[in-house]
Every structure is written in structure tokens, then in C-alpha cells.
């Protein structure tokens, strides 16, 4: 009974993880611009690793009876949980800083040019969310622009 | 069919070697040449490691009590050190490239040759 339960749980986790991972790759291929790809890839990377890792830990503990492998897998999960989102964050920030302009759903640029992207990354908070329109971002940048001018 | 499956890995090794050789001959940029050298190097690593693999074998780390089939450890030892030595040599090569850039202002092979030809004998 317990065996069956373990099998079912790890199977389910593994399949969910595989769906995560494959969908992330599809996002990486199909999405129109860097930031949407980044979104798809980084979320599924972390999520998929987590779920598959859990499945593997269950397997290691109950099927292979190898607690060392479970501990190591746990360490890998912990490590990935910290580094993977950090790397994605740094990637997005650097891309914005280097002037990669985000696009909206129709493929139109959300900012006027690379300069504005760079400014947006330098201002705080760098506040780009999906669904924002160009005017509002411009307004925010304008506000930050004024503030930055006062400070310096 | 069996021949294709059995020899496929060697053919990939050859393709990698060809890629490295092509880059080293055809590209003028010295850094790119080092990248080609790296590709060539890895192809050799592969040749060794594929030959050491035994079907159904496991990594050559002894397990207590059991007697499974182990893959051949000898190529692993050779290649392990070769990788470290390889990165050391490419570090020296890259350092030389940096020096060349400081001296000539370019890392393109033909431009360096042109500068060399233009300079009178010292």
C-alpha cells in the first residue's frame, strides 16, 4: 500500500516536473521577446527543478534506500532555489541596463529607445510589468527623472 | 544499421575534430583560433572516453560486495589531467593574445602580418 502510494506520488511529481520543463522550453522558443522568454524559462526552471528534485528525493529515500543521495539532492535543490532566480534577475536587469527594449503583446516597443531602457534600469524601482502601457512607463520615468535631477 | 549505431560516436568525434580544424585554419581571429583548438581538444577527449565505455558497465568506483562490470578507468585518468592541462595551455595562449593586442592593436592574423611586413628590420 505504502509502496504504491510512494510510486504514485513520485510519478505524479515527476510528470508535473516534466510538463513544467518542457513548457518552459516551448516558451523559450515561441515567445516573442527576451523578457517574456526570460519569464517563461526562469519560472519553469526553478519550478521544474523543485518538483523533479522532490520526486527524486522520494525515490532515493524509499526505493533506493540511499539517504546520502537524498541529502545531496536536497542540497542541489537549495542551491538552485537561490541561484537560478538570482541569475534570471541579474540577466533581466543587465539586459535592461544595456538597452534591450521590452515589447508589448503586439510586438511594439514599450519604451522609446535603448536610452530609456537603460534609464529605467538605473532608476529605482525598476518597475516594468506586463500589461503596462507605454504612457504610464514614460510618466514613471519622467517622475524618476525629476527626482534624480533634484538629488544630484 | 548495427555499424551505424556502433560507430556513430566516433563519427561525431571526427565531426568535432573537423570543426576545430576548420576554425583553426579558416578564421583569422586569434581568439577564435583558440576556441577551435578547444574544440579539437575535446574531440580527442571524446575519442578516449568513448573507447573506455563498456556497455552495461558502471563508473569505476568500487562497490562493496558486488562485482558489476566497470568501465575502463585508464582513459579517464589520462583525460582528467589533459583537461586541466588543456585549460592551462589555453590560458597561456590567451595571455599571449592579449600581449599581441597590446603590441599590434589587433588580433587578426593577416593584419599582424601586414604590420610585420611594413616594419623595417630592427
Amino acid at each position, binding site marked *: 500500500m505504502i509502496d504504491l502510494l510512494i510510486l504514485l506520488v513520485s510519478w505524479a511529481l515527476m510528470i508535473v516536473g516534466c510538463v513544467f520543463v518542457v513548457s518552459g522550453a516551448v516558451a523559450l522558443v515561441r515567445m516573442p521577446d527576451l523578457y517574456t522568454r526570460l519569464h517563461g524559462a526562469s519560472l519553469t526552471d526553478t519550478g521544474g527543478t523543485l518538483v523533479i528534485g522532490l520526486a527524486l528525493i522520494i525515490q532515493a529515500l524509499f526505493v533506493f534506500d540511499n539517504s546520502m543521495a537524498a541529502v545531496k539532492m536536497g542540497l542541489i535543490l537549495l542551491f538552485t532555489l537561490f541561484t537560478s532566480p538570482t*541569475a534570471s534577475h541579474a540577466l533581466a536587469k543587465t*539586459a535592461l541596463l544595456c538597452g534591450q527594449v521590452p515589447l508589448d503583446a503586439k510586438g511594439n516597443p514599450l519604451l522609446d529607445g535603448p536610452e530609456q531602457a537603460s534609464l529605467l534600469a538605473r532608476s529605482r524601482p525598476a518597475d516594468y510589468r506586463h500589461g503596462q502601457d507605454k504612457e504610464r512607463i514614460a510618466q514613471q520615468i519622467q517622475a524618476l527623472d525629476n527626482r534624480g535631477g533634484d538629488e544630484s | 544499421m548495427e555499424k551505424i549505431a556502433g560507430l556513430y560516436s566516433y563519427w561525431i568525434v571526427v565531426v568535432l575534430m573537423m570543426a576545430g580544424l576548420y576554425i583553426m585554419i579558416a578564421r583569422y581571429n586569434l581568439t577564435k583560433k583558440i576556441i577551435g583548438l578547444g574544440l579539437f581538444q575535446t574531440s580527442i577527449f571524446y575519442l578516449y572516453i568513448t573507447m573506455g565505455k563498456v556497455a552495461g558497465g558502471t563508473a569505476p568506483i568500487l562497490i562493496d560486495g558486488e562485482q558489476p562490470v566497470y568501465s575502463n578507468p585508464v582513459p579517464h585518468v589520462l583525460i582528467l589531467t589533459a583537461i586541466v592541462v588543456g585549460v592551462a595551455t589555453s590560458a597561456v595562449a590567451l595571455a599571449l593574445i592579449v600581449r599581441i593586442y597590446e603590441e599590434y592593436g589587433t588580433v587578426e592574423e593577416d593584419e599582424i602580418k601586414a604590420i610585420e611586413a611594413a616594419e623595417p628590420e630592427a
Partner: protein
Amino acid sequence: MFVAATIALLITMALTLWRALVGPTQFDRLLAVNSFGTKTVLLIAVYGFLTGRPDFLDIALVYALINFLGTIAVLKFFEQDDLGSGQYQEDDY
């Protein structure tokens, strides 16, 4: 189970590799390579279980570490064109 996961991971790796080759920008490549690294970590882990000897997870751990290191290095190169500058933390506000 492990076979299915291995196949899924290989497919994922192929798609990711395609993005790394096509680009179009360097950031896309870097993103793809970073994602590829995570998939490799998973592949190594799953493969260990597939062959019934899950003792080699150390390698997957090294991968996770080195993948992070490489991504950060390339990002710093993008941003500053110099690996040694301290400007990631020197700041004046």
C-alpha cells in the same frame, strides 16, 4: 518513469539549444545557455537514478554552481566590459 523524464529533458535541451544557436541577441543566448545548464543538472540527477547508481549527484551540484558562475561572469562582461571592476558595489546613492 526515469526514462520518460530523461526523454523529456533531452527534448527540452534540444529546444533550448535551438534558442542558443538562433539568438537573436546575446542575452537570448545567455538565457538559453543558463536554462540549458539547469536542464543538464536535472539530466545528470535523473540519469543517476536511471542507471541505478545515484551516488554521483556531486557532479550535478558542481554544475549548478558553475552554471551560476558562468552566467554572472558573462553578465558582468556585458555590463562593464571588464571582469575585475568593483562597480557592482561601488555606488553613490
